[in-house]
């Protein structure tokens, strides 16, 4: 059993909360005391059924109080999979929230109100999903009960969406007609839409394959910590601790340490009381090298045959996340895996109007702005392009005056 992380995106009142509530309720993922609280609540739907949106309600209250809640996480599990839902509320800061939620998700559910079809917000949500390079997209056409469960309405929306998806390079898209309120095709297959041959939403979520990239060409392990017991019997012990970000390392692999460029071979891989022959993406291990070389936190181990780019000048997409606008005269901190160094935004190439996807010229970025910039870093970074290897292609910007995380960067090209 593995974990699928997904997020839901939709405009206000498309039925996001109802959909999540329905998913939890029908998959029997609600605990007894939560259920009692739900039943005790006096909020009911028009037909007297429980308002399932209450399950994600904490967030609505906060929205009203103006609290910055970018993502709330929900957990549920079926016999096939464990799920982590990133629920991203907040409308003013929607971009920031959705980018945060999407950065950790394998899949996005994009909600469309069957009565409205593909609207401006749908374009925006889909753009963000493609920007963050999510593996899978599910378009859930909701409120089918309000369009008489019409196959034609559904097909037209699918056609419209496909046209847009092609422009955004979204390839793995599935389409499901649902009614979150009535429960059609959420967990149980719908009896009202026998024309639909596909899976219910939960069935899809349970079976969609989430692959990890464990090719040797993307073998990357950022060093987090060096284990040196310095006891008598372990006098020469020196283990490099980290989590394999992508790809796979094996004992006897030739490796290079970046940015220094020193080379060695892996002599041993340790995991507590085990010595695995291989460490692949996602594993936290301790690596030993045949040679004594100078390595510290912030360095990256890579397969010697497949080096990432090492550069101090990087073209990147930037999503601005702070209420203070970006200031090109400032020096920011950039955190890329275990490496933190200073940087400047040396050039702003364009901003994107995320409702029309037009590129517009710009000098600065305000909260929720997205666009292309060139970053100049104090120390070189060993990175991959985000679209090719997410795990080594993203970074955050930190304002050293406030220490807040102010920007998300997706590396797109070496600008050197």
């Amino acid at each position, binding site marked *: *059993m*593995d*974990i699928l992380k997904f997020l839901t995106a939709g405009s206000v009142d498309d039925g996001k909360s109802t959909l999540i509530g329905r998913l939890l309720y029908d998959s*029997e993922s609600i*605990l*007894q*005391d*939560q259920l009692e609280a739900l039943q005790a609540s006096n909020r009911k739907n028009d037909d007297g059924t429980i308002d399932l949106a209450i399950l994600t309600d*904490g*967030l609505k209250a*906060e929205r009203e109080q*103006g*609290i*910055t*809640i*970018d*993502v*709330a*996480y*929900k*957990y549920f599990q079926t016999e096939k999979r464990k799920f*982590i839902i990133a629920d991203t509320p907040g409308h003013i800061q929607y971009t920031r*929230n959705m*980018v*945060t939620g999407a950065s*950790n998700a394998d899949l996005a559910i994009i909600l469309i109100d069957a009565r409205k079809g593909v609207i401006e917000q749908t374009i925006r949500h889909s753009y963000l999903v493609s920007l963050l390079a999510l593996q899978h997209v599910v378009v859930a056409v909701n409120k089918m009960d309000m369009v008489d469960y019409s196959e034609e309405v559904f097909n037209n929306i699918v056609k419209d969406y496909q046209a847009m998806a092609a422009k955004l390079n979204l390839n793995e898209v599935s389409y499901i007609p649902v009614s979150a309120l009535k429960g059609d095709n959420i967990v149980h297959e719908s009896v009202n839409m026998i024309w639909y041959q596909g899976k219910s939403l939960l069935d899809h979520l349970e079976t969609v394959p*989430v*692959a*990890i*990239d*464990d090719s040797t060409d993307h073998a990357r392990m950022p060093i*987090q*910590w060096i*284990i*040196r*017991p310095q006891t008598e019997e*372990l006098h020469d*012990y020196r*283990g490099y*601790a*980290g*989590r394999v970000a992508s790809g796979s390392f094996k004992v006897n692999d030739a490796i290079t340490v970046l940015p220094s460029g020193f080379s060695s071979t892996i002599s041993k891989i340790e*995991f*507590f009381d085990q010595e695995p022959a291989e460490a692949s993406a*996602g*594993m*936290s291990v301790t690596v030993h090298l045949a040679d004594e070389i100078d390595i510290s*936190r912030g360095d990256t181990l890579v397969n010697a045959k497949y080096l990432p780019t090492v550069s101090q000048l990087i073209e990147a997409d930037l999503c601005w996340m702070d209420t203070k606008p970006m200031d090109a005269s400032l020096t920011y*901190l950039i*955190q*890329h895996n*275990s490496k933190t160094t200073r940087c400047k935004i040396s050039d702003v190439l364009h901003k994107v109007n995320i409702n029309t996807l037009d590129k517009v010229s710009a000098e600065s970025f305000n909260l929720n702005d997205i666009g292309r910039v060139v970053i100049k870093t104090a120390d070189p970074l060993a990175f991959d392009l985000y679209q090719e290897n997410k*795990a080594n292609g*993203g*970074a*955050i910007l*930190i304002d050293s005056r406030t*220490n*807040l*995380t102010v920007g998300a960067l997706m590396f797109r090209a070496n600008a050197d």
Partner: protein
Amino acid sequence: MSKNKLNYLDDLEAEAIYILREVAGQFEKPALLFSGGKDSITLVRLAEKAFRPGKFPFPLVHIDTGHNFPETISYRDEMVDRIGEKLIVGYVQDDIDAGRVIEQKGKNASRNSLQTVTLLNTIEKHKFDACIGGARRDEEKARAKERIFSVRDEFGQWDPKRQRPELWNLYNGKIHKGENVRVFPISNWTELDVWNYIRRENIALPSIYFAHQRDVITRNGQLMAAAKALNMDSEDVIERRNVRFRTVGDMTCTAAVESDAFEIDDIINEISESKISERGARMDDKVSEAAMEDRKKGGYF
């Protein structure tokens, strides 16, 4: 050239180890808050996996209310002996004696809220800049939106209006002097995940987690251990029942549930049948819906 993701427990474990190593790498003086409960016991095992054969780059810190279950304290001492790591204990009694806090009176008196003060004093005294805790997001609504690295100001307060976005697995641990960060490596674990992990790793737990015979009284509709700390009087009827505890907090605020779960497998079955969520068994949360949020803003774990 791709294969499936790690098994979910391996995945959660690897993530937690990664987070612990980030703490080691990013902070000068971290600490691991050890409550004696199953979540912090799990953290200790994860720390062993993250740092052995080296020492932990942090001490364990326990806030002792003086009303802990004796089983928890003896478990703690045996464990510290076994792993050979440093333990720092902050005593709520010391703050009471020094007049820094005033003990509640009456039947429902609890030292639970006082431990926040002792915790903050302990953090200040040792100048800890990061405190690792075993909170999980599935425990309670207010925790669902908690960050993995959560910044607290000098007064231990959590400001929900200034939370930092957490992107990918990049945790921003930059803080100003006087601030500290609470770090939650098992944020993404559910109660069931923790139990499954404990079973898989064969981790010993304090005996109160398992069904046993105990004298209990009923307070506010919940079963409580019949202990001196509960200020019992003639109205309290002591009964002997088969119970276990789902959390090991202070005796004054940790309710027992009737149970025949003598073995870990029984417990896992009991939870899988999902009767009542874990925090449903803690009286301090019942006080108000927003209780957790308020305590968090005030510096509680």
